[in-house]
């Protein structure tokens, strides 16, 4: 029995995606909402793809769900801003409306296209994973400016998409399960990034007037 072939590439991809996130943060300068958000979004992409016929359909469904769930949660937070309630109750409301949106979308699409796509376990898990980012989203919205929130949301969704594509890329997955050396490469990249003290690319653009 070839142990390597039976080992899920999903797990090995975890440090790969995290490394992408930290390169984006420390070398390029785009921040995400913590690591968990992009990981959860990438994993949700993976689960949707398990029940999808094509990567294009997966991307469309995933984007619609991610933007929809996060968008509804954000709108809920905005609508509730004048209503007096406890902080965590407010977050609970954001969860409630976002998941209600998911549920309604599932019913409508299932009815129109006569499909049970939204009822299968994998897609439900994907919705759960996207929904689980609401907590971090809420905290970020309360603490940072709208501009910073938007910036981090865009980066997180993009990195979630890149991570999701990586998780579903057959050639890549076949490559990493047979080459555990990739983890050494990842380790080296991490050491380099960990010691990177230079300016981030976005800072080069931001501070260019200082050296004029």
């Amino acid at each position, binding site marked *: 029995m070839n142990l390597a072939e039976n080992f899920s590439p999903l797990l090995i991809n975890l440090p790969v995606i995290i490394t992408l996130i930290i390169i984006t943060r*420390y070398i390029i*300068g*785009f921040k995400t909402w913590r690591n968990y958000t992009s990981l959860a979004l990438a994993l949700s992409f993976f689960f949707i793809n398990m029940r999808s016929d094509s990567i294009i359909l997966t991307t469309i469904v995933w984007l619609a769900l991610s933007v929809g769930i996060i968008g509804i949660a954000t709108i809920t937070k905005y609508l509730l801003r004048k209503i*007096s*309630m*406890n*902080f*965590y109750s407010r977050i609970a409301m954001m969860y409630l409306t976002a998941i209600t949106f998911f549920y309604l979308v599932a019913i409508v699409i299932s009815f129109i296209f006569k499909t049970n796509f939204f009822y299968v376990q994998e897609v439900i898990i994907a919705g759960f994973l996207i929904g689980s980012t609401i907590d971090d989203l809420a*905290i970020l919205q*309360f*603490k*940072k*400016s709208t*501009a*910073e929130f*938007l*910036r981090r949301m*865009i980066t997180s969704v993009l990195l979630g998409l890149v991570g999701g594509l990586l998780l579903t890329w057959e050639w890549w997955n076949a490559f990493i399960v047979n080459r555990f050396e990739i983890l050494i490469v990842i380790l080296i990249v991490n050491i380099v990034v960990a*010691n*990177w*003290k*230079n*300016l*981030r690319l*976005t*800072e*080069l*653009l*931001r*501070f*260019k*007037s*200082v*050296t*004029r």
Partner: protein
Amino acid sequence: MILPSFSFSEMNSKVLGLNFRNRKLLRQLNPRKYRRYADDKLLTKRILSKKKIKTPQLFKIIRTKEQIEYINWESLPKSFVIKPNRGTHGSGIIVFYGQRKKSLEWIMPNLETMDILQLKQHLSDIIDGKYSIDGKPDVAFFEERISNHKILKPYSYRGIPDIRIISYNNIPIMAELRLPTRESKGTANLHAGGIGVGIDIASGVTTTAIHRKRFDIIGDQYDIIEETLDNPKLPLRGIKIPYWDKILELTIKCQQYSKLGFLGVDIVIDRDKGPLVLELNARPGLAIQLANQEGLLARINQVKGIKTKLIAKAITIAKNLFGGEIEEQVENITGKEIIGMIETVLVHPNTFIASKEGTKKKSKYVAETVKAKIDTGALKSSIDYALAIRLGFTELQKVQKLFETKYDSSSKAQEAIIEYKQQLREFDDIKAFTIVRASNGITIRPIIEAQITLGDITKTFVLTVSNRSSLIYPVILGRKDLKEFLIDPSRTFTLR
């Protein structure tokens, strides 16, 4: 796509980025045990008040939700501020400017009001940790509202401007005035739309001003602006910050007491109480570099090895090293360089000797770097006899007895000088003789011409020669030779 033209290595050596700040400065200079002195606002107040440093007066502390129910709202003053103890980026802070007549409602900068129910909700959110730096449950407190100082009041829209000073190695290295605007809803936060204005450390006068651009994916970008955004439009350049030396002194004291090696100190100026420390910041933001159009890293490297415990000395160092923005502007307008009362100059050797020896033969005389006193009370410049000899003006030895002779009266000096003037054609280096009346008597001095480099300017100075061996400065530069310069009497060694 046109790539911006700048050198990566030049930027890396000048500009402080988040990676360097977090890895090298915060980790090494701001250990966790000291960081809490800044993160915990109540602890900051306690420590600073023990050291007799003034902070805004504390009214009430609310630690639990139960305590909210027992607040005596009628006992609150008409204006106050509510803050989370461990808040970040100014989130959760609400300033109340006044109270509605005959009701328990308080007015915010945007002229909206909050009633007791809304205030209770806000306090409850703070205690739940909605605004705390790590998301953990927090403490809320009521604090006095600062009254705006008359100089800064016209520049701020319904809020209190604050002054952020970055201090490293107990030396203030960069400063910024932050002004609230209508867009920022009365807060001085740059991310929220406030204005950041660089401050010249030496003079406490404002320089460049910045304001956040619209949304940009790469991070907050800033435009350079010249006037306030809200009416009346006022120029932002040239505001003299009141109590400037006191502010620098407070900054150094805060760094010494907090033991944070890299610190941002936020100071507000109260109309009646003067400068008060608003809070300490263990992770100061980096946009201050844009407001000053200068890199923090270059300044950090300048003060890295300096050791001083004396506050006055640290202020002098900061002023000497980091003043200059205003001077540059003055220099650009007048075309004249600004110098202090004492400067280091390079005195070149006797050019006549050097040319006689020819270019192939190396002259034995070399230029000397010496301290020169800038003396606007003296008309002519002067050089020490021994220094002149070392520079190759050896002819002076032939008239050496001049330096030992003092005359009782002008007539005797006049008689003596005639004799010397007759010998002039024998000399190459000595151009003339002059009678000088000083407090210690009347003397005759020979006059030579020597090249002196002062800053970027090298020119021929006409110098009287005297024996200055018992004096500190071997060279005096008089006003006749200083027409290309402006003199700042408060400074020394400005030319680098």
